[in-house]
């Protein structure tokens, strides 16, 4: 089922279907998007003027780094992975890894900086999510209403398949027989008079009479 969801159109259709199925969706959605990230742990690292090279805003939003210490050689690769998951806010459906825009370049630099400081992938993405919302995630996370995006197309497809299967295998009602061909229904001869002599020959050869 997964490849079905790879295209943007099918995701959009799935979203529309989800919204149709759940009239309460916009409210749930708003709640989901409104979840705040707590401004805490400023004190842990000594506040904004600690001079430890930490950005006051990053500390206020994320607290201390929770990721593993990344060796210098692996920083680029990890940063690239994260870049591919962040949507470029000034582009059309492109990750910051794929955009040459100034904004994307600056976001990539910031991702790299945060990786170097030891922030985890989830922390880094949530930092951008604080300001841009869930929109900044190129892959909608599998939680809340978004689950519908993944499940609904499969449900609809399986439902359709079940319906068709049931219809196709429906037994005839008790006592019913397939009726005779309606009067004047065309036979192969009517369709193509040339065919008649070949049909005749086949019947003769195979020993069946017409």
């Amino acid at each position: 089922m997964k490849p079905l969801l790879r295209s943007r159109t099918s995701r959009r259709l799935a979203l529309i279907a989800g919204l149709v199925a759940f009239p309460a969706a916009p409210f749930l959605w708003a709640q989901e998007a409104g979840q705040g990230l707590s401004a805490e742990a400023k004190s842990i690292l000594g506040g904004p003027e600690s001079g430890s090279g930490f950005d006051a805003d990053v500390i206020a939003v994320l607290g201390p780094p929770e990721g593993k210490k990344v060796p210098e050689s692996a920083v680029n690769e990890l940063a690239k992975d994260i870049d591919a998951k962040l949507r470029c806010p000034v582009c059309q459906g492109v990750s910051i890894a794929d955009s040459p825009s100034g904004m994307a370049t600056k976001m990539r630099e910031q991702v790299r900086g945060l990786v170097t400081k030891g922030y985890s992938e989830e922390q880094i993405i949530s930092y951008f999510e604080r300001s841009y919302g869930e929109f900044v995630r190129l892959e909608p996370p599998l939680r809340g209403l978004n689950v519908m995006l993944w499940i609904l197309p499969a449900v609809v497809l399986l439902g359709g398949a079940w319906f068709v299967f049931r219809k196709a295998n429906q037994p005839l009602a008790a006592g019913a027989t397939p009726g005779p061909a309606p009067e004047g229904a065309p036979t192969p001869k009517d369709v193509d008079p040339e065919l008649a002599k070949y049909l005749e020959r086949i019947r003769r050869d195979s020993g069946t009479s017409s």
Partner: protein
Amino acid sequence: MNKGVFAIGLAVTVPLIGLLLVNIDRDPTSISSPLINKPAPDVRLMELSGGASVQLSSLRGRPAVVNFWATWCIPCIQEHASLTAGARANPDVSFLGVVYEDTAENARGFLAQRGSAYPSYADDDGKGAIAFGVYGVPETFFIDAKGTIVEKYVGPLDGDTLRQKLAMARR
């Protein structure tokens, strides 16, 4: 007609039409900022002259207006006079400009030519714009005295809109 099919058809189309009607005058390109009613990002910005820097949290205690702008942005030129007049008329509010995707040199030239009533800051690494979730310029954030973002305005501000939004920040 098959009643079941009719019911399914209604169940699908009625909510869809409802959804269309509800959202008919919504701008699909505008995404509301998740920062509204949240603390303003505590970014550090460098003065255009390259000297001093300001930590945004140090402005708490009075309302603030943070305007992202650029010299290449035509609507920013349009709103410049309103913002300058607004800053002069409201000395109790901290106005600050943040230069977006532009050089300090361009910005200094622009302000020298058109006049200014409040400081503008460089944001060379883009951290300010990223923290505020800026999509383009002009974007203006209204922050109350407690440091909470009360409103985000996208597009050129005129005097009336500015007054109205300032009233929200003062509340």
